[in-house]
């Protein structure tokens, strides 16, 4: 009875999703991230609906051109990220290094621009007669800094991981049989990009 097991032990186990475990784990984690940002964005929508007169028109306070460039940077970092993954799949060591490094740098650049944007706003931003636009500047300031701040925090975590992945790339860790790490990190990175796409539209343009 129980000994009959041995004969069929080489069968694959019930294979779940037919996707390797780390990728499933990342997707599950991203589900909870969706809910986290849904909480923030939902609050933003509701607060804005409840008090729309206290909202600035697009471009009135925020520097949209700079942020548009920043959006462009993040989109570019997404494409370099998939390129790094494609390079890993193709076992193109040079490509892996180049694209991971590029992604890290673009991510860092995004953070730099955001830091610049925040500094400008806090020091010179003008809204409702007050000099300096801070989280304490009404619901508008509160929601703006909370949403973009938490997105920035996610970018920061991503850049840290990317820097680690880049170092690993120079040590030759990634390759044709070893690209799961890049793919999983890529999922996170694209998700952060995706959140920014939504935030850019609802915070800066509407």
């Amino acid at each position, binding site marked *: *009875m*129980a000994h*009959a*097991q*041995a*004969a*069929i*032990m*080489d*069968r*694959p*186990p*019930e*294979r*779940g*999703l037919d*996707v*390797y*475990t780390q990728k*499933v*784990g990342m997707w*599950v*984690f991203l*589900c*909870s*991230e969706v*809910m*986290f*940002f*849904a*909480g*923030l964005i*939902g*609050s933003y929508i*509701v*607060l804005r609906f*409840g*008090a729309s007169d*206290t909202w600035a028109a697009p471009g009135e306070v925020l520097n949209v051109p700079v942020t548009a460039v920043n959006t462009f940077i993040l989109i570019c970092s997404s494409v370099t990220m998939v390129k790094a993954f494609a390079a890993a799949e193709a076992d193109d060591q040079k490509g892996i290094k180049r694209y991971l490094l590029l992604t890290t740098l673009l991510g860092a650049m995004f953070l730099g621009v955001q830091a610049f944007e925040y500094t400008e706003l806090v020091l010179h931003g003008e809204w409702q007669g007050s000099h300096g636009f*801070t*989280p*304490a500047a*009404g*619901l508008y*300031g*509160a*929601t703006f*800094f*909370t949403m973009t701040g*938490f997105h920035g925090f996610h970018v920061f975590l991503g850049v840290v991981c990317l820097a680690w992945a880049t170092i690993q790339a120079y040590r030759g860790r990634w390759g044709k049989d070893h690209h799961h790490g890049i793919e999983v990190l890529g999922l996170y990175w694209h998700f952060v990009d995706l959140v920014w796409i939504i935030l850019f539209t609802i915070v800066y343009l509407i």
Partner: protein
Amino acid sequence: MATIVAEATGQAILHEEHGQSFLRKYIFSTDHKVIAIQFLFTTLFFLMIGGLLAMLMRYQIAWPDRTLPGGGILPETMVSSGYILPEFYNSLVTMHGSIMVFFAIMPMLVGVYANYLIPLQIGARDMAFPRLNMISFWLMVPAGLMTLASFFVIGGAAAAGWTLYAPLSGRPDLSGVHLGQQLWLMSLVVLGLSSILGSVNYITTVINMRAPGMTWFRMPLTVWALFITAILALLAMPVLSAAGIMLLFDQTIGTSFFLPEAGGQPLLWQHLFWFFGHPEVYILILPAMGFTSEIIAAGSRKPIFGYKAMVWAIVAIAFLGFIVWGHHMFQSGMNPTLGLSFTISTLLIAVPSAIKTFNWMGTMWRGNLQLHTPMLFAIGFVAMFAIGGLSGIFMASTPVDIYIHDTYFIVAHIHYVLFGGSLFALFGAIYYWYPKMFGRMMNETLGKVHFWLTLVFFNLVFFPMHGLGMVGMMRRIYDATGYQHLQGIEDTNQLITWAAFGLYASGFLFAFNFFWSLWKGRKAEANPWSATTLEWQTPSPPKHGNWKEIPVVYHGPHEFSHPDVTDKDWLAQNERPDVTSPAHTGPAPQPE
């Protein structure tokens, strides 16, 4: 192939065990069983603390005009010239609820038993992400320390109720609590992260790590319940984290999300909190339902009655759990039209709960009931949960809720569900899986005494509270004696308090049994309850890596008293039945 990789890591786990330092083996272990036991000790400690707070609270309610015996050892900010202060009482109310929900019941259900049982019951060697699992435990520890520390900071611990309704929770000038509230929120965010990481792990493990033949509908109901619970936690906790962070910002960096002076919305806090809070209620009950199903099937020596209905009931409860949160807010000033839709969804959710109750009774029907301690607690769960479920119908009916909202009726209801429900099932689970965890049995006589004392004292404490609620006694009242409509209830409140002391004391009987049995308990064999699920088919306690060879599963989880098996009354999931009865066992997995 992934299989080969999985087996290779499995073998690696098996070999890794030797030569580990004490620190790696018992403190920073990545073994799911060790982590589960770490969670168990931590949560039992918090259960004791939470209970102690309740005792202080009960003393104040019963004898508001008397000094607290021994109160002198507490600081002046809590007990002044022998009397419990109102601000300390509010902290007690708040922290009793928070600690019990977030640091005792929830991690006990999920941290302990999801960790321990999921890999063992689905036939995996460990969690999908063992290191993440360890991190999840070690995030809970600082969160717990922050919560405990908050009692001793200036202004005392959080005092706005465990629901933290803004603006009271967001305005230190109005609540008198400064750092305590912030510590509470930070601890909540850290705990939320811990529980999200845990959930990611549980979900991934169940999805991807099941043993060969362990199809979805062969999973034990415990695994089903814990899996769905993990989904609820995964989707609900981040919303609480987001809301908690916003509230923290309101206090610290001058935002005003929930403060009306600058246009914030106090009701937004309630919506976000209860969007988390109601799934949380099911996070606290679904695993208990899973344990109960398991124990009742084994204790009745019968397959669970209507296995698929039980599964779908869990799924339905989870889904509906996301659309009923408004029933906590009927009197909050919420749009009354929303009230109607929330009434209907709330009444709907009673249906799957009823199905589960009837199916447990159906399982006991014509069984061969083994009334051992775990079984008694499981039956106690069904009996008490039924009361909690029925009293919930009063609140679901919006007009009745106008009267009983925020009265002791609610207190009775929540405790019938969380104590009579979750904690009874947890006690049952501890007695039931203790031999597997520690290789020894808990003392049966002490266990039965513990059960009957708990049952009697529990009902003496909480049943009269329904009456207090009908009379109109409000929740969270430091001193009820001043109210005209609350005259004449002092005797009842004193009775409740005496019973509560008895209830707490019987907890120490349990604690004694627990620790005594660690060293002196009877040695347990691999399968002391003659149960069918996979965890019983490996030695007690299981070795690192759980199995010599990954088991292969041939049929559903509760094949008790199968007519074709004559030498015993159970058939383990990894035992191939000699006679295949297609209706009941399903096709055996085909070798490829």
